[in-house]
């Protein structure tokens, strides 16, 4: 490997890893409170992308569109909870797995609704940053680094820190954790558990909106992102340890760096890159079944 290869692996690993981490953070937000994996998370990214696209096409500047999309997508998150989770009533997610079907179904139906009512074409979004104080991009050892790349990486790390602070240092975060540990006890302590769950889905929607707008310069706004990105990010979240915010980010980077290394060695990387990634996935889960940062569930007997 020469210096160009090494820099390329670093840049590719960090940017693609951040892309995956951004989506994985949404999975974790919901799981850490409800013990439910929201399989509609990928679709929420698509919905947010189409909302942002509609706004920018209407002439709304991208930064304002981002803010409005975050709000709209938070509402979408609440709606997902309303449709996919609320009707299930009180249930134990570990034994009643109807949520798998309901969240997955809501995701698929949303994508089909967009396909039928809007279109199935990919669409562009303007980048949030064209330049930073006149800097429009550089090449380090022949490898391109753009303001968009940096923005994705910094935003992902900032979101990770922000969510961790929210979960650990705030009353709301404590409420999240209380609901996750024992919903009935939390309710007896005066916590409005339904509102907390709703809030979690709203936050997941907001994160999806940030992800959709940040990722658009690389992945565009397209229906396929829901499934493809959703699966990859789910793997990242499980790899890092479901429920762990930093785990989601590390999981994303683990997959992306593995992919970048495989690509740097082989012209036919696309043919066996998934195999290598799944081997890594399997290997880590054999050693740490709960994921890199996951904590095994202990059962008192």
């Amino acid at each position, binding site marked *: 490997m020469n210096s*160009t*290869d090494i820099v*390329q*692996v670093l*840049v*590719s690993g960090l*940017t*693609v890893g951040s*892309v995956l981490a951004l989506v994985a953070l949404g999975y974790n937000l919901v799981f850490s409170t409800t013990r439910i994996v929201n399989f509609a998370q990928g679709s929420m990214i698509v919905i947010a992308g189409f909302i942002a696209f509609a706004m920018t096409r209407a002439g709304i500047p991208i930064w304002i569109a981002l803010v409005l999309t975050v709000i709209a997508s938070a509402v979408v998150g609440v709606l997902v909870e309303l449709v996919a989770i609320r009707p299930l009533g009180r249930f134990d997610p570990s034994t009643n797995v109807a949520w798998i079907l309901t969240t997955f179904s809501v995701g698929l139906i949303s994508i*089909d609704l967009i*396909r*039928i009512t809007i*279109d*199935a*074409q*990919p*669409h*562009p979004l303007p980048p949030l940053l064209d330049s930073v104080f006149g800097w429009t*991009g550089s*090449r380090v050892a*022949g*490898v*391109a680094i*753009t303001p968009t790349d940096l923005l994705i990486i910094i935003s992902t790390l900032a979101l990770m820190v922000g969510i961790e602070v929210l979960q650990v240092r705030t009353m709301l975060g404590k409420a999240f954790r209380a609901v996750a540990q024992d919903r009935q006890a939390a309710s007896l302590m005066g916590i409005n558990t339904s509102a907390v769950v709703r809030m979690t889905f709203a936050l997941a929607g907001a994160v999806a909106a940030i992800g959709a707008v940040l*990722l658009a*310069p*690389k*992945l*565009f706004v*397209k*229906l*396929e992102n829901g*499934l*493809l*990105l959703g699966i*990859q990010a789910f793997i990242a979240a499980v790899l890092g340890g479901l429920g762990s915010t930093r785990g989601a980010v590390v999981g994303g980077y683990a997959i992306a760096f593995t992919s*970048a290394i495989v*690509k*740097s060695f082989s*012209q*036919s*990387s*696309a*043919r066996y*890159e*998934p195999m290598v990634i799944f081997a890594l996935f399997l290997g880590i889960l054999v050693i740490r079944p709960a994921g890199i940062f996951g904590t095994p569930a202990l059962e008192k007997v």
Partner: protein
Amino acid sequence: MTPEERDIFIEGERQKDLSRRLFMKVGFGGFAATAFLAACAKGNDSGGVSSGAGEGGGDTIKVGVVAPFSGVGAFIGTIVNNSLNTAVKQLNATGGIGGRKVQLVLRDTGVDPANGPKAYTELSADSGIVGILWCSGAGLTQALPSIKRDGMPLIGVFDDLLSSGKLYPDGDAAGRSVFQLIIPTLYGMDTLGDYAKNDRGYSSAALISDTSTDPEGNTPKYFEAAMKKAGIENKGMETFAITDSDYGAQLQRIKAAKPHTIWIWGLSANSAGIVSQLFDLGAAYVDTPTAKAGGDWHPHVFGSPAGTGDKSWVSLAGDKAKVGTVTAWHVGGLISLPSFAIAGWMRKYIQKDPTGGEESPADGLAALLNGIKKAGSTDRAKIVEGMETMGKIKFASIPFGFDAKRHISKVPDDMIVVTMERGGTGPAPTDPSYKLGAEWGQGVFERTPAGPAHLVRPTLAANKRAHPDVMAEVLEKGYGTQCTKHPDGSLGKECKIH
């Protein structure tokens, strides 16, 4: 209904040989068939029956349609739906063929190749199904042995069997009952190779291709063969997956080899992503002399019809999409020409603009119905024979046909070379000055600032042979031919450099 509209519908050149009764019997497309398609688009997988009074009412002709209506290829399902929806509305509006109703039975394969054989088994178990339109549904290769065994009339609408040697009579895998509508990748690569070498003077090329839509790995083989045939040095072949957003490692290796041209073979979003990253690398295309000069690497981008041939890629890549990107298409794909019926029908019946490819499912349906019409029967063997002997037909785009020795609707003479141009800022200045084709002024591409300009060389003579009327219109009205047209009307090479 004008006489012209009447002529549009399945205008068999040998129509006069057919009895009016038979003509009226076949393909009575109707409202219910349209409704059926709409219902299928919402998730149903089998369908209703068209309405329409007429002789022999109650009889139906059932045609199977296999396509990816869900999953990553669902955009193809949308094209198929729009096309067939429009086609049956047009059939109905023009009085249909009378008597017999058309029932389309849809099967969704998603992305799983295992669904192809399953879809075929379900359709073939229905004795009423007289033929199948296979519109890029996953698993055709796996279903071929059963199709061959059953002798099921089948049209590969978006499936390239010829390039991989599976199409009858050159290959035997598909059997005699299978026909192909789409242009073969081999023709496209050969045409582009010839153009790159002989018109632009390029001597080297590298490929970056999608493995997700080419699981059998055929694209690199076709590329190698085309480069060898054209006498162009192959400087490397890279791959990517449809899910990729980063092509850094692959582009670094290609950059090190510095080929004059880079061939991007994938869908529009990936093509846009690769072109954007070429721009970020400082390797955007400038012009032909710069691409050939070496030094700083500025390769000329050659793309696949489904990638840089899809006008949406330019709006995705934005300013990073450079004027002059080349792809190959076939004359029938020039849906902007007013004489091609499908675009007008779509605007009329479903209030949508074509996005590309809509002519093909409609033409496939027409071919199958004409085979039945010619056969005068729904016997499978007779339908196949009917399609082989029906001569040229015209429905959604240009006249086409099959014969006993040619189960592919296109011929190499159909191929054209297309450059994608940007609206607004217009093309790069050239001498003689470049004037955009008339299609720009007609708002045909109003939904996007991108659209094709058609370079009819190096196959102008061949195009004229294959489609004299169409090419006369292209040249007379100036649809994108200005770039290759001198003031005296002759065509020259120099204005291609833009």
